[in-house]
């Protein structure tokens, strides 16, 4: 079932949670709403569910206006950040709840309910936990129960509010892969709220990036990663290094030419997009730098280098093999040339990001 969000606005007193956000989600799609805290992503999800009401704008589920449709009638499955399992009920009863409260007309028989719950518990691999209570389960298991409970009523839309953020890194990774598999199996339209860019890019068909109550960009993970439309998006999707003025001119051929705009132009380079050499490359588009710190733990070697004229150190990632071939180490002098540099004509926004501790 498709979801159409049209110019949704929501204020809490003087705080603008959402400023006219529009978004169309296709049937069967898995969309991630990605943004920092306070960006309005959870508010938007709760408005789709009917747990909050928008000040203006509309949400259409399958082309049907929902403004007057109570949350209990929307046919939605909702998974909460802190599971929200019914603590006084067994796992079985938790999953069965949505089936038991259906109106008599459509309610399944006791036997059918038992079959459906058993089926769902085996889908989330918790068959043997049916008689236990929520507080006897681990966080990851509880969230799987919450998902089974949400799926029990065969929702037309599945909404997940930072479902994995309370779990540790390993479990989080397992669960998101598993969520993707379940989605591929059931093909139910799914909206996932997260502040973890890795999670969004890995799991979702499309990612909507929200910032301060507005939609910054909406596209496939690759589009968003390769062609970010704003410094905010670029920065939010990973570590960045920021260059401007004379240094930017040295790194790009055209930078030096138009000096009138030079003050407002900034260039972004991701740590893994640098070419590191011992000597100045033939085209001359490189800056000299000194390695200040080396962290070789992990698949890549992380360098922190000092570039003359740049206030902050620059983060560089290179392959381990190259690191050894060049015989690099702390205090060594190198040349940095970006293989790819993304230039924005919006220095104010970029500097603001830098002040917030973005980049390195």
């Amino acid at each position: 079932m498709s979801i159409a969000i049209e110019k949704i606005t929501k204020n809490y007193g003087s705080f603008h949670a959402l400023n006219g956000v529009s978004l169309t989600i296709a049937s069967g799609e898995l969309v991630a709403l990605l943004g920092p805290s306070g960006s309005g992503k959870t508010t938007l999800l709760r408005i789709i569910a009917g747990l909050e009401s928008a000040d203006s704008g509309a949400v259409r589920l399958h082309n049907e206006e929902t403004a007057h449709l109570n949350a209990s009638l929307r046919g939605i499955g909702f998974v909460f950040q802190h599971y929200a399992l019914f603590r006084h009920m067994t796992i079985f009863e938790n999953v069965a709840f949505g089936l038991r409260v259906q109106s008599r007309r459509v309610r399944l028989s006791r036997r059918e309910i038992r079959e459906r719950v058993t089926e769902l518990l085996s889908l989330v691999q918790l068959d043997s936990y049916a008689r236990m209570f929520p507080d006897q389960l681990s966080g990851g298991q509880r969230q799987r129960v919450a998902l089974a409970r949400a799926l029990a009523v065969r929702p037309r839309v599945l909404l997940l509010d930072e479902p994995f953020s309370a779990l540790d890194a390993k479990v989080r990774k397992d669960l998101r892969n598993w969520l993707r598999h379940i989605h591929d199996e059931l093909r139910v339209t799914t909206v996932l709220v997260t502040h973890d860019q890795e999670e969004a890019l890995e799991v979702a068909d499309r990612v909507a990036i929200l910032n301060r109550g507005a939609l910054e960009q909406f596209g496939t993970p690759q589009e968003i990663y390769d062609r970010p439309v704003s410094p905010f998006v670029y920065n939010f999707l990973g570590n960045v290094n920021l260059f401007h003025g004379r240094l930017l001119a040295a790194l790009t051929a055209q930078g030096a030419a138009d000096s009138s705009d030079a003050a407002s132009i900034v260039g972004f380079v991701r740590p893994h997009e640098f070419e590191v050499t011992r000597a100045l490359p033939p085209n001359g588009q490189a800056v000299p730098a000194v390695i200040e710190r080396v962290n070789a733990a992990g698949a890549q070697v992380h360098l922190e280098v000092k570039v003359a004229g740049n206030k902050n150190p620059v983060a560089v990632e290179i392959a381990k093999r190259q690191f050894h071939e060049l015989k690099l180490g702390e205090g060594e002098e190198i040349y940095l040339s970006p293989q790819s540099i993304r230039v924005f004509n919006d220095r104010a926004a970029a500097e603001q990001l830098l002040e917030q501790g973005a980049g390195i």
Partner: protein
Amino acid sequence: MHLVRLRSKSERAPSLKTTATRLALVFAALIFVAAFLVLPLVTVFAQAFAQGWRVYADAVCREDVIAALKLTALVAAFAVPLNVIFGLAASWAIARFDFVGKKLLNSLIDIPLAVSPVVAGIMYVEVFGLRGWLGAWLSAHNLHIIFAVPGIVLATVFVTFPFVARELIPFMQAQGCDEEEAAVVLGASAPSIFWRITLPNIKWPLLYGTILAASRSIGEFGAVSVVSGHIRGLTVTTPLEVEMLYNEYNFTAAFAVASLLTLAAVVTLIVKKAIELATGIHGERETGERAR
């Protein structure tokens, strides 16, 4: 649990660490409790049975004493359910919704705890009494509130008002409304959410508050004394009966009836403790869990 907490505190405070200090403190506390609580309680029973079982039984079976016991039960039977309903409604409103005047309501609930019960009594006389604001209208319609049972119920409801709400509000606030929201999204109706989710979650603090309210409504003296009118057999509750017997120098009967009230208090205490043990309400483990 309390012992554990005490010990860990004393470890942090070196001056209290010595055995001598600890013994002295424990001894002082025990002496205090014995002198001010246990001894008087024992006296009640000693006096009640001073002239033997027969006199005790006669005193308790007097017609006006039976009437007083019945009235007390009747008042509690009205006041406690009213309190449970008000308490639930107030806690629900305060814990689940944001509205103008929420803080004011939250403080107003405590007024009965802050104000002397006598003040509560004369307040009601002023409103419902013959010369009060509503007095003329009430007597014109032949409705008796002051110096009658409805007045006693009203006064009792007033003094017991905070007990249920004060137990429920912090509990419901700590618990949040995630579970109720989950139930809404799963398609449950409002009554269904209340009976299946909310009530099972709050049953222990609700019962705890109810027991406190019941014990207070059985024992309330001040407010009831003002609105009662002391008509024997009609508007005299058990605590008032004790006072009247005592003032009539009928000590044995007074203590006999007092022993019944004391017994009720002891039973309340035991039930309360049982709930605390069963659920960990007001204990460290449970509150920590809830806060999370």
